[in-house]
């Protein structure tokens, strides 16, 4: 049986929880063999492969996975704090370059002190540095230098999550109101 080009790297990256970006040569191969890989990951690992126009990643049904949660907390806090400063956080995350000092500044002055202090990935500057390293390995951010980074299109997954979360909450609130 012939396997697609970069098969080993594609499977390796996705199973390592990495996002494969459209700028990566592997992405085209993955997209061209979307049916095969969709079935492959479903049958072998019970993972769902999601291929968007500019990135692809695996979805696990393991809902208590801690890293995903920490990433959500981090991006959620970032959006909240940027909005508080009167910035359009979507534009910022899509186009702006961040540096770790700015992140430290935002999180250290955040009103979500308890949440940050109790999170091992975000509690201090050193932990955040490690955490950004993880995000970089997973292709969620792109490090431009030791301290500076930009977000890759993978950030959209988390924005969709927040949007769906709001919809779910609004729907629940609506049902509650109806019941009252």
């Amino acid at each position, binding site marked *: 049986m012939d396997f697609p080009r970069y098969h080993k790297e594609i499977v*390796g990256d996705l199973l390592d929880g990495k996002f494969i970006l459209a700028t990566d040569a592997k992405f085209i191969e993955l997209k061209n063999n979307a049916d095969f890989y969709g079935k492959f990951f479903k049958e072998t690992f019970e993972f769902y492969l999601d291929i968007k126009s500019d990135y692809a990643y695996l979805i696990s049904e*393991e809902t208590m996975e801690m*890293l995903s949660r920490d990433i*959500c907390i981090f991006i959620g806090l970032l959006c909240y704090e940027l909005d508080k400063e009167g910035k359009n*956080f979507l534009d910022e995350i899509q186009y702006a370059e961040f540096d770790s000092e700015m992140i430290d500044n935002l999180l250290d002055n955040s009103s979500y002190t308890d949440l940050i202090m109790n999170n091992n990935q975000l509690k201090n500057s050193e932990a955040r540095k490690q955490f950004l390293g993880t995000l970089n390995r997973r292709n969620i951010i792109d490090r431009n230098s030791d301290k500076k980074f930009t977000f890759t299109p993978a950030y959209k997954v988390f924005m969709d999550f*927040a949007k769906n979360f709001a919809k779910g909450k609004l729907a629940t609130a609506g049902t509650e109101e109806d019941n009252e």
Partner: protein
Amino acid sequence: MRTEPRTILNFLSNYFDIIKELFDVQLKDGLVRKEDLNAILAEHDSDILNKLIEYKFFKKIADDYEIRPMYFKFLEFILSEFKPLLPETIEKYEHSITSLFKKIKEGINKDRNILLQRISDLNNEVRDFTEAVEKNTLRLIAETKELKSNVDKIDYREKVRKASFWIDYYITPLNTILDVSHANSITNRLLDISQYINIRRLNFDDELARQQFEKLYTFLVQTNDDLLRQSKILTNELLPLIERIRSESMILTGWIEFLKNPNKSETPFIPKSLRAYPYNNAMYFNSLEYVQQYMQNDDVYLEDPNLSASDKWIFNKEFYREQLMKELPMPNFFEWAGITLRGEYEDIETEKFFSLSTLLFEDDIELEFDPTADRQVIRTTEMNLRVPKIKIKRHGLS
């Protein structure tokens, strides 16, 4: 006495700061209240009220004032600050334009002067209509950009409220008015008119009327282009921009809700990093080694051992107990057990050794051992046992 136009323009120029403030007040409130006027004049330490009335800038309404429409429009135009018209206000042009067009068609062969007047009126109505649309688009762009840049740092909920307001009351209805694919849109009506006028400008008998039709036709073609451009601005720029504000706020709502209790919320995302996934090198070699064990299968024959019940060793406790009692006092119990078994069998079997060890629990003997002393090793067929030196003597006797 009629005032010199240049004097009025100089006056507007000299007192433009006050004029601008008065304009802003009227833009916001619809008129300039007496107290607002006094406050503005006091702030600039100026008393120009008489001049404002003399130059017909103000019209007095009870105790308050209103900037006359011609000045107001002029200021709107030069400041590019327009009060947005509700789409239903703009829609009124549809009726006036349709009505004039109907009368032109009906009276096409009747009075020439009336026809010329109607053509001219239609021209004016179309121009007023396009100006109203243009003003609204400019105002909507300004409002949307202001919302987007959020210089006033307004709360995101307020931002959504404003965005929704502009979409629901202005942008969407205006888009419907301008939408060419919509059968009843004014744009479509103008296209019908321009087709009719196009024929008339070429074949109408009267030359002056033909020239008027020609002028109106050129104007309509240009208007259609303008409306198409406005429609494109609405569809391509304003709607996505304002939708983005809505979407942005939806995302923020989601994050705020999520951050309230992140540990209790489901985040069904990316899988954990799988260190031992089937494609890493170590896994490959490990699997190969494992599989290779089964590559060559040697035949293995299992035979039932020919053992009968009588062959099975049975611990004859009484026999060994007697032997033990004969040897007492004994300096090292386990050594004796080892020697005894080795005297009878070739190897010391663990089972037999443990069986003999049970003699230690007999009642009529007394045990003594030093826990700090070195232990000795007894080798059995299955294991090496490290055992202490246990002295034994008869119970009660030295």
